[in-house]
């Protein structure tokens, strides 16, 4: 290529690159950036007054605590289940493995309203398949905390598994086999080798699950009965306050929820990039070595 053609090619590349960059930035700004900025403005329009007023409302505080409690318990359930199932899927073969793997992804594509309906059909206190039996023994699922925890766990079920399984598969069982041959028990091997290996994937999965659990609305709306002061979560409270002509409280609570979720995601994204950064320099030097060698 002559130097002029070369220059033109480079210029064309940078124009396309620039145009693409602008398109992407504008799209994201219009769809996400600007609206979010407006909500922040709305919330802090009167300085901290809206937030202070919201936090002095006993029911707002209760709903936030309830959301946190429900989310944490759902996260715990999904983490235990997630790590267990990931190990099973990545390390073992068994009949129905492929079906299980596909079904575990199902909650990602099911509507939360369908989740709520499904749980009511099975655990409803009067006509539920198991619910009636449980109700007679005094164990309430629907209109009570267990139902809400189950609904939240349902919708966020696959998130840990989707992060951990690929890592387990990449990792291979060499180290674990080595440990076993050196006399480590399965528990030691899990604690010392497997868990550290999936650490970051697990953290990211847990944070995603937590964020999803904090934000659950549709399924919880159906199974909770919306009992203010007992089963009303923060998302349900946002809807109620908005409808009760208390918009500033609604915005303030919405902002708090959003801030926590976004903060979690940001922190983990940043940490992940830092962590990946050190890894990729290792890789870059390794492949450079390889290329140099050839």
């Amino acid at each position: 290529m002559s130097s002029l053609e070369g220059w033109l090619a480079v210029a064309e590349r940078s124009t396309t690159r620039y145009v693409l960059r602008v398109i992407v930035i504008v799209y994201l700004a219009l769809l996400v950036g600007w609206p979010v900025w407006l909500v922040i403005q709305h919330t802090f329009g009167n300085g901290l007054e809206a937030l202070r007023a919201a936090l002095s409302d006993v029911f707002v505080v209760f709903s936030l605590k309830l959301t946190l409690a429900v989310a944490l318990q759902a996260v715990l359930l999904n983490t235990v289940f997630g790590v267990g199932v990931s190990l099973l899927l990545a390390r073992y073969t068994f009949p129905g493995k492929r079906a299980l793997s596909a079904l575990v992804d199902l909650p990602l594509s099911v509507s939360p309203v369908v989740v709520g309906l499904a749980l009511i059909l099975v655990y409803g206190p009067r006509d539920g398949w198991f619910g009636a039996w449980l109700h007679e023994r005094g164990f309430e699922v629907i209109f009570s905390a267990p139902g809400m925890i189950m609904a939240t766990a349902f919708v966020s079920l696959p998130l840990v598994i989707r992060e951990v399984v690929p890592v387990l598969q990449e990792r291979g069982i060499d180290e674990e086999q080595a440990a076993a041959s050196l006399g480590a028990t399965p528990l030691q091997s899990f604690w010392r080798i497997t868990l550290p290996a999936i650490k970051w994937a697990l953290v990211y999965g847990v944070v995603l699950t937590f964020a999803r659990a904090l934000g659950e609305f549709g399924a919880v709306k159906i199974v909770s009965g919306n009992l203010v002061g007992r089963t009303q979560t923060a998302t349900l409270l946002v809807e109620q306050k908005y409808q009760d002509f208390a918009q500033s409280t609604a915005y303030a609570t919405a902002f708090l929820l959003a801030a926590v979720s976004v903060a979690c995601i940001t922190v983990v994204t940043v940490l992940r990039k830092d962590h990946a950064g050190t890894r990729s320099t290792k890789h870059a030097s390794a492949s450079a070595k390889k290329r140099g060698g050839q």
Partner: protein
Amino acid sequence: MRSHWLALPLAVVTAVVMSACVPAAVGSVGSSGISDDSGGASQVSIVGFAVAKAANDAAQAAFVAANPGHGVSWVTSYGASGDQSRAVVSGLDTDYVHLSLEPDVTRLVDAGLVAPTWNAGPTKGIASTSVVVLAVRKGNPKHITGWDDLLRPDVKIVTPNPGSSGSARWNILAAYGSVLAKGGDEQAAADYLRGFFRNVAALPGSGRDATTAFASGTGDVLVSYENEAILARQSGQDFDYVVPDSTLLIENPAAVTVDASPAARAYLTFVLSPAGQQIFAAKGFRPVLDGVDVGAVAGANDPAQPFPAPKVLQTIDNPFGGWAAANEKFFGDAGLVTSIQAETGKS
């Protein structure tokens, strides 16, 4: 940066401990709610229809103030009346219900949750009354003055869904009755309802959902309770309302469940007392007792005369023959409204 191998297990343990602790903390907040500190907390749970929340909240505060020494905490749930009634039947635990119309309480009686004598008292079980009004945009730009204007092609109506909402059923019967009041026959009234549903722009789930929809810009007229229009204006919403010439007396029943606590029964007595009715009046409801001093009601068209007597005030008994008959005729599986909804495709 190699982190210590203990870090992760420690994190997991922290999470487990925290999540075991948080429900305990949450539980104790739940049982405090709105209460005073003088011991003996008893909890009253209330399931109500959507529009009654503000009035009940105010009445609860007054009740607690008037009865110091009994710590009462409240657990409340508000939503579309029919939906709430069905929820209670299917297991939503409650001590006290305040629903939009009598059949929603009858359902509970049939399920054995409320005593059959619930409506034996002097007010026949009714705790609050109102009338059906037409809420319009500020300044009434479309000049809506009565039921006939709702059939105009340029008018879009917002009314809740009769399947779930009590408010909706009162609205529809008021509309139907307005034709009868002018001397029309049942056929004319049915035709009116057809035109009405054709103009319906939205059918939100509850009376409050309808108010929110109207406030967010849907439709030109909201058919609703008078007290809802008054409350909305008290809360800063910018719309006007019209009491049509012919309207229907809305009567909202309240009852306690068979295993309700004494505090719940005391609350019902309070609501039915002049003091309780005064509080409800301040939130826009018309008192069920005579001689209650209503005072000035902010948000009403004329705060000094907040509850004008409409020219024609129909009741569910006259001309509709009671709720059992009306429900069957209009809202049953073969009901008139059910079939009109199917015809016009609005459900």
